[in-house]
């Protein structure tokens, strides 16, 4: 294997993140140090965490010297569960990243016709998918371990754990590589056998797949809580010793916690063999299917009958209606856009899983009012924000079509905004219905929550669209960006502020109702009844909507005038 080839291929992947709209592209010069900033930051945070842990340990040991032993044991069991944690996390992350790579075939194909062996190609691909969060988190963990360990005399376990964490990330990424290739092949077979239904099979199939992964993801990251999870991992991985993915963790566990060095050594050796096996499997799959192209999806056959469309009757010009229909197809056919529909579902499911998971029964009444408001407002709001952010950027490199067509800023904003509002309201209706069934709120709660949901959708949709236009990023390799990261962050904060502003009239009401449940003796007069509050919040929402619709129009004019790609 030629390591130089592997390194060069990885560099291509890393550098594909460079294209940012509006950035100077001639005489490009890379600052070596800045190019790797996420890892430097991770390193700094890791060192800081290690030092903090030291401080905590110091004060701990000073106050209660007898507990030092149990502290060490605790640290060791955390060490031993880290590899498994990293495997799960990196696997989910790299897999999601793969999914979002979309159908864009540019750039990434070059290596296939270079004199590069499949082994080099596969290794580079596995390592390159670790760039970004997985690698940064591994660096962070390793740095923290190494800084912290000398203090409690756990240098060897810490170094071993750091290495195991790197190996775990590689293991996860190699698994993703195997999945990726199999999935391409499998999808090809499905297209062939489902024929014209392929579009829908793919849509529903992808949604289900994402759903499962996101549920696991949220469960891992937010669901059970990280501390809980480490305990669970530590206890579960011994029971699941036959699953190769926990072998790295077991190697640490047996070597350092229970002192059975020989067993530890065995697990280490089989882990290494497993990783090598995964790599060989990925290589041979790549060799067989790496160049496989799924067959064409045939959507229609036979007589061509143009639609007259009901959008026209709703007052849309033929241009606007065409844009809306096109976007509808984009969101049902482009995999990276389908993911959007997952979030509302997750957002309803996660609190449900949590309340049902911990107590096994329906939540209490007081909580149910908030949960109702949550299911009405939150998914629809998220949908409006995401659609608003992506609606322009999703055009990608094909955006020249918009620029070169006789589309005015008014038509563009009108059709995009309509799409955002329509789909967010559909989500509002669905999640509202689900919330109503589950939490059985009062009629008043339902009416007010629905109205507030509508206000939020209109206002946050307009706000997010204005940012989505201003910060549009049409880059498509290695994955469609759709919006600059900084803009989407700013937008999120702005939406938070706007959301709070719209709901502000309810704050006195919420305060008094919360206080009265906790202190029933205290009777606080409600000085703003909910319907008046709704009316005031409607006014705030309308003002925000009008302002940001105007801002969107101006941004769209600017976008069409500059016509940058």
């Amino acid at each position: 294997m030629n390591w130089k080839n592997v390194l060069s291929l990885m560099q291509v992947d890393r550098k594909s993140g460079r294209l940012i709209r509006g950035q100077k592209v001639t005489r490009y010069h890379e600052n070596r140090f800045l190019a790797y900033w996420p890892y430097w930051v991770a390193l700094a945070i890791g060192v800081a965490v290690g030092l903090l842990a030291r401080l905590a340990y110091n004060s701990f040991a000073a106050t209660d010297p007898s507990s030092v032993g149990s502290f060490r044991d605790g640290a060791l069991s955390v060490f031993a569960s880290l590899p498994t944690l990293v495997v799960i996390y990196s696997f989910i992350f790299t897999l999601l990243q793969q999914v979002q790579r979309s159908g864009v075939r540019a750039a990434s194909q070059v290596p296939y016709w270079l004199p590069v062996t499949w082994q080099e190609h596969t290794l580079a691909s596995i390592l390159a998918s670790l760039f970004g969060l997985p690698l940064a988190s591994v660096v962070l963990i390793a740095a923290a371990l190494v800084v912290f360990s000398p203090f409690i005399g756990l240098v060897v376990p810490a170094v071993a754990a750091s290495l195991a964490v790197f190996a775990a990330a590689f293991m996860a990424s190699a698994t993703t590589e195997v999945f990726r290739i199999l999935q391409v092949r499998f999808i090809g077979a499905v297209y062939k056998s489902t024929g014209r239904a392929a579009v829908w099979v793919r849509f529903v199939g992808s949604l289900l797949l994402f759903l499962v992964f996101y549920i696991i993801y949220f469960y891992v990251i937010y669901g059970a809580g990280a501390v809980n999870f480490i305990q669970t991992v530590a206890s579960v991985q011994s029971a699941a010793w036959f699953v190769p993915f926990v072998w790295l963790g077991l190697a640490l566990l047996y070597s350092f916690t229970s002192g059975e060095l020989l067993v530890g050594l065995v697990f280490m050796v089989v882990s290494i063999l497993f990783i090598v096996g995964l790599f060989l499997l990925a290589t041979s799959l790549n060799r067989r299917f790496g160049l496989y192209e799924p067959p064409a999806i045939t959507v229609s056959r036979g007589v061509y009958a143009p639609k007259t469309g009901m959008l026209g009757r709703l007052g849309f010009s033929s241009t606007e209606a065409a844009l809306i229909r096109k976007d509808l197809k984009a969101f049902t056919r482009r995999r990276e856009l389908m993911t959007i529909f997952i979030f509302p579902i997750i957002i309803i499911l996660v609190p449900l899983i949590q309340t049902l998971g911990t107590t096994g029964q329906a939540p209490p009444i007081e909580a149910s009012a908030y949960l109702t408001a949550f299911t009405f407002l939150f998914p629809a709001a998220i949908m409006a924000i995401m659609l608003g952010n992506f609606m322009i950027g999703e055009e990608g490199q094909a955006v020249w079509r918009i620029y070169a067509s006789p589309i005015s800023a008014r038509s563009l904003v009108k059709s995009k905004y309509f799409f955002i509002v329509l789909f967010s309201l559909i989500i509002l209706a669905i999640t509202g219905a689900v919330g109503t069934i589950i939490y059985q709120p009062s009629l008043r709660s339902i009416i007010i929550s629905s109205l507030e949901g509508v206000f939020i959708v209109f206002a946050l949709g307009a706000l997010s669209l204005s940012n989505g236009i201003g910060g549009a990023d049409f880059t498509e390799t290695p994955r469609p960006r759709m919006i600059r990261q900084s803009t989407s962050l700013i937008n999120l904060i702005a939406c938070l502020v706007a959301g709070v502003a719209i709901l502000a009239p309810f704050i006195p009401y919420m305060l008094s109702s919360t206080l009265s449940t906790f202190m029933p003796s205290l009777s606080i007069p409600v000085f703003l009844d909910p319907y008046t509050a709704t009316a005031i919040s409607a006014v705030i929402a309308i003002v925000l909507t009008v302002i940001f619709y105007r801002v969107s129009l101006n941004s769209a004019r600017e976008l069409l005038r500059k016509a940058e790609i």
Partner: protein
Amino acid sequence: MLGAVAVELKGVVKRYHEILAVNQLDLTINTGEIFGLLGPNGSGKSTTLKMLMGLVTPDSGSITVLGKDVQKDPVAVKKLVGYVPESPRLYEFLTGIEYLDFIGDIYGMQTEEKKSRITEYLKAFQLEGREGDMITSYSDGMKQKIALISAFLHRPKLLILDEPLSALDPRSARIVKDFLQELKAQGVTAIMSTHVLEIAQAICDRIGIMYQGKLLALGNMKELRQMSKLPDSGLEDIFLKLTGTGDTRAIVEELLK
């Protein structure tokens, strides 16, 4: 309408940071003319064509297209123009027919007219049978055909074609060539950049040769021959001589060392 001005550029300059892409370009193209824009890679052809479409804003100078200022009234201009960019990216998640349908609607075509034209064009460019497939599965040439059809579909008054013949098979290139000549008879103006010199020589009324953002030469074949002092030569020799790249022999020999 022959003789009326279709496109007029006056003192147009466009720079990308330190690169001067188009340098003080003056050019007038008449209605009903087929105008060929030639020039080595990076000489500013695509930039010029994009500026005509309003896709790139010139740093200075003025551009009038069909009597309208592109910067002031872009939508009105775009309605009358059909444009094919170089290596066009289409909406790959649409099928060929859905894409053309979308284009028809964007230009506000009537349903019946749209349907009959789409069917005719698909037949002419031999895309029948594949129109229901997603564009992702098309070859480059097929994508180029879809891009061309979408420029012709709404019967524009002006065609702006950036290397329209690239990736096309000989038969389709021939169809485009004959089609442009038919359109010319109907008073349609066409501006195209191309590297296919035989076709440029055969169909272009006038040819402009660009080099480093400037117009080196402008005129019909006869005038170009006079200008280059190559009375009996074809366009290839004239092109090579004018752009100073004539001495290719020495270069090839250098490469073979």
